[in-house]
């Protein structure tokens, strides 16, 4: 889910045009020293349509068409404005690497960054949102060599879900299962039309599927959200509980599904009637294949991980009667992929500390917000993340007090207080690598244009190499260690 809650609406019509100068620093590139002479311009011939994947939200629509033209890139996101924004996000003009605000070569910046990190005792590595899995693998590796804290953006908006999964497990399915089978769809604290504009078209409400040949007409759609909700316009039922009552209502549904007495249900405080909930519980039990998508609305406020717990628990209960799933909606970039990489390399998806020489996991202790609030890190590397998307003013202040490094395709305004800035090629159009859809399905991202900036993967591989070399240089002289 878009952490900023960006508004976007569906528009009809195909393609928009983006000025090519936004995508390549063509003229400026010549004055910068590049690590290797990267071609400026399009990887593929002009005028030919290229299939592309949009990572503007966790839907990862892979039916996008890009057509490089003489001086622009034609983008057809099949009507998704948010997708169009994704393909236009790019670096404003500026140098590829800076140290203390001064332009340097990539090689110099990498050596500086490695030095900062190697000299730190308790560094923080955070982000990994807008990078490929291949690049994420390098970041986790360097966290390991450095003994750093490693945290992904999941700690801000998916952390509660992660904790819920450890409490009760998860009942997951790929989005194609929803499309082919679901006859009952709930969006809880979620407004996909706003945050995941093509979710309902491609996966959840409209498409005909093997067991739902009628598409929309074969599905019952429920929205549970106290807020203004665009998706609710298409729903068969919109429950508007009082804000902050999700926990209560989910547990009441659990009881109703299990056929238990719910006692005195306070309709006024909760903002929904018990009859409505009874009907909903009955519908949940009698559908053939149900799915509950939960969004940011369910995961805010105190005790929010208990809400996710309850949502997954409800799905567990309903499985005594029919097939039912509960899934979070996830946001732009590749957060699912990065969590996955961190998990297979360390055993944990976020909130990891490697200072003792092995992975330790403790959300709330080793997560970014907690670390910055306690002013614990003595250096930081932010990679593939826009700091202002997640960090509060206080966090940013804490960050400004230590040497920190920014690697990514971000606006320089975001990194004024950084010691080292390395700017990389945009993920949307100029990166090749693996990205994961929010349902854990991996997709092959391919560069459609070339960028004068190096890719995240290249930069991070070089940074890992430099870190290893510097750490080794600091070890006692070579002894007679066996080879």
């Amino acid at each position, binding site marked *: 889910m878009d952490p900023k809650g960006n508004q976007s609406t569906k528009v009809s019509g195909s393609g928009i045009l983006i000025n090519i100068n936004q995508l390549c620093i063509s003229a400026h590139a010549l004055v910068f020293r590049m690590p290797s002479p990267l071609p400026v311009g399009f990887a593929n011939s002009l005028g030919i349509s290229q299939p592309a994947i949009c990572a503007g939200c966790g839907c990862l629509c892979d039916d996008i068409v890009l057509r490089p033209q003489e001086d622009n890139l034609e983008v057809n996101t099949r009507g998704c404005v948010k997708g169009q924004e994704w393909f236009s996000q790019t670096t404003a003009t500026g140098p590829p690497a800076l140290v203390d605000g001064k332009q340097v070569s990539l090689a110099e910046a990498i050596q500086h960054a490695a030095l900062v990190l190697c000299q730190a005792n308790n560094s923080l590595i955070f982000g990994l949102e807008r990078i490929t899995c291949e690049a994420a693998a390098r970041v986790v590796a360097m966290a390991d060599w450095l003994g750093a804290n490693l945290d992904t953006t999941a700690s801000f908006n998916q952390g509660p879900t992660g904790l819920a999964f450890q409490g*009760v497990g998860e009942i997951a399915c790929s989005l*194609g299962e929803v499309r082919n089978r679901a006859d009952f769809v709930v969006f809880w604290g979620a407004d996909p039309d706003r945050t995941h504009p093509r979710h309902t078209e491609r996966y959840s409400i409209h498409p005909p599927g093997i067991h739902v040949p009628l598409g929309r007409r074969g599905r019952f759609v429920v929205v549970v959200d106290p807020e203004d909700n665009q998706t609710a316009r298409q729903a068969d039922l919109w429950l508007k509980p009082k804000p902050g009552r999700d926990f209560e209502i989910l547990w009441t549904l659990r009881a109703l599904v299990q056929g238990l007495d719910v006692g005195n249900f306070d309709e006024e405080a909760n903002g929904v009637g018990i009859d409505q909930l009874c009907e909903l519980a009955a519908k949940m039990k009698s559908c053939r294949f149900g799915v509950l998508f939960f969004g940011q609305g369910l995961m805010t406020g105190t005790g929010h991980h208990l809400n996710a717990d309850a949502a997954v628990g409800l799905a567990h209960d309903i499985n005594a009667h029919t097939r039912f799933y509960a899934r979070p909606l996830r946001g732009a970039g590749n957060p699912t992929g990065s969590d*996955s990489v961190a*998990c297979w390399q360390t*055993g944990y998806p976020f909130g990891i500390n490697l200072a003792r020489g092995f992975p330790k996991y403790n959300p709330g202790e080793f997560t970014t917000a907690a670390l910055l609030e306690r002013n614990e890190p003595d250096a930081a590397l932010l990679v593939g993340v826009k700091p202002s998307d997640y960090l509060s003013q206080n966090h940013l202040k804490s960050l400004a007090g230590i040497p920190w490094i920014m690697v990514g395709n971000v606006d320089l305004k975001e990194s004024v207080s950084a010691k080292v800035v390395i700017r990389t090629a945009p993920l949307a159009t100029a990166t090749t690598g693996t990205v994961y859809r929010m349902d*854990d399905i*991996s997709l092959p991202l391919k560069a459609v244009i070339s960028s004068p900036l190096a890719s995240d993967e290249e930069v991070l591989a070089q940074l890992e190499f430099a870190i290893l070399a510097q750490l080794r240089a600091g070890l006692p002289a070579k002894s007679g260690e066996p080879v």
Partner: protein
Amino acid sequence: MARRELTVLAGGTVYDPANQIDGRVMDLWMELGRMIAPPSSRELEESTVRRIDATGYVVMPGGVDMHSHIAGPKVNLARRMRPEDKRQTTPVERHLSHHRATRSGSTGSVPSTFATGYLYSGLGYTTAFDAAIAPLAARHAHEEFRDTPLIDKGFFILLGNNHYALSQIAKGEQERLKAFAGWILEAAGAYAIKVVNPGGVEAWKSGMGNIHSLDEPLPHIGCTARQVVRGLAQAAMDLGLPHPIHVHCNNLGLPGNFNTTLATMEALEGRKAHFTHIQFHSYGGKTGDQSTFCSKTAELAEWFNNHPEITVDVGQVMFGETTSMTGDGPLGYFLHKVTGRRWTSADTELEAGCGIVPITYREKKMVHALQWAIGLEWYLLAQDPWRIAMSTDHPNGGSFLAYPEIIALLMDKGHRDEALKRAHPGILMRSRLAELTREYTLNEIAIITRAAPARMLGLVNKGSLAPGADADITLYQPDHDKRRMFALPRMVIKSGRVVVDDGDILTDEGVPDSTRTWMVRPGFDPGALPDIRKWFESHYTLRFDNYPVEIERLEKIAALSPCGAKKP
């Protein structure tokens, strides 16, 4: 001319059953990662020789695990679900020095990827296959393999509940099924075809319960488990795959399931097949009546002993804490209900299901003790060790780290009797374990842990030390205590390089790994492609062109090793 660089492993006591070498003191020569014939004196003059003294050590080919769960979304979901499991076990520490750089990792029943590679290697294993990857998860599995060092790898893809496969089977389109199997094996970069609870997972995903017998048709598709197993077994044979279909039968874990297992073996009508974790499929008794639960190993083993086209791995249960993870979705739910513990389930469109549940096997619990006994019965009643492979179905029956203990139980009747005394006494009546006196020899251990699984997989360069084979070798210090002997190899050599020396992992993760991912390129009839494409585009949620793994990218992370599959 550049001098050749040879290595000789001198004077070890060699157990190489694939080449009829049973405890012979001899020298083994290797060059460029392969075994070579002993060089002539002229060749020696042109070479630099590195000598490793193996005098007094037992030398075997590197271990081969043919059925394990080490990569892909299912394994990663299990890691994510169980942080507490890792806190109770010793993690793998990072090591960085001038010559070595190894990564840290978490352990427990589902270790992280680097830890998995080091632990297997530290145990003397040099090859391991993941047994259950949905084709749609192939790219993810390959990514994890890239981060699993020191062992060669490969995986089997789930086809026994694949919609396209099932509908071709229902229509009797055997040729199209064969083409589809060839195409999807290539698209996934996979090694073999796996069938899990044929039809049952699809029934469960469709809200129709499960499939409990071979001739029960799947309501909405029309085929039966019998047809699925038969059709895919035939397709694997027609494609010339090095490993036949790998079957996880219907009714896993249920009392009385041995009937289903036997019927499935019979349904093949002489076609080759591998029956996996056979222990979980060898139960007598009536559903819902635990008092009738008993071993039917003897009945199944008798059939097995007379049918050379069938191979098995055991899926030994070992006592302790572990994680059950299966492509058998309804089984996961069943275990969740039985154990009352956490449950993760994950279904993949048009292809597969998955269930994950923590489980603790207790020796004082009758059912668990009996499962343990049934596994051991299988090792002891299977007459031909070349057709039975050691496995715990890691981590389902227990971790692969339990292999040394299983070896000790097989080699030492006294050790077995001690263990029997500790287990629930009910098993004495319900199984024949106590009366089985067979003790495995070192040669037989070498067969069931490397030579046989390599041969069953059709990996001609593995499980053998003949010239041309991969120089994957393990040295053990002979020890009366077989558990200690096999838990701590003295040295492990992978592709001619010493990777474990006295427990130290000698590798540098700062440089690319030289391990390989094994996959088949069986070819397929391109005429079938338009139909597959049409089906794909109307039902999947991604583009057809984004489905196959990118072979060019895989080449960067692992050398492709096409197997000797015949072109159709």
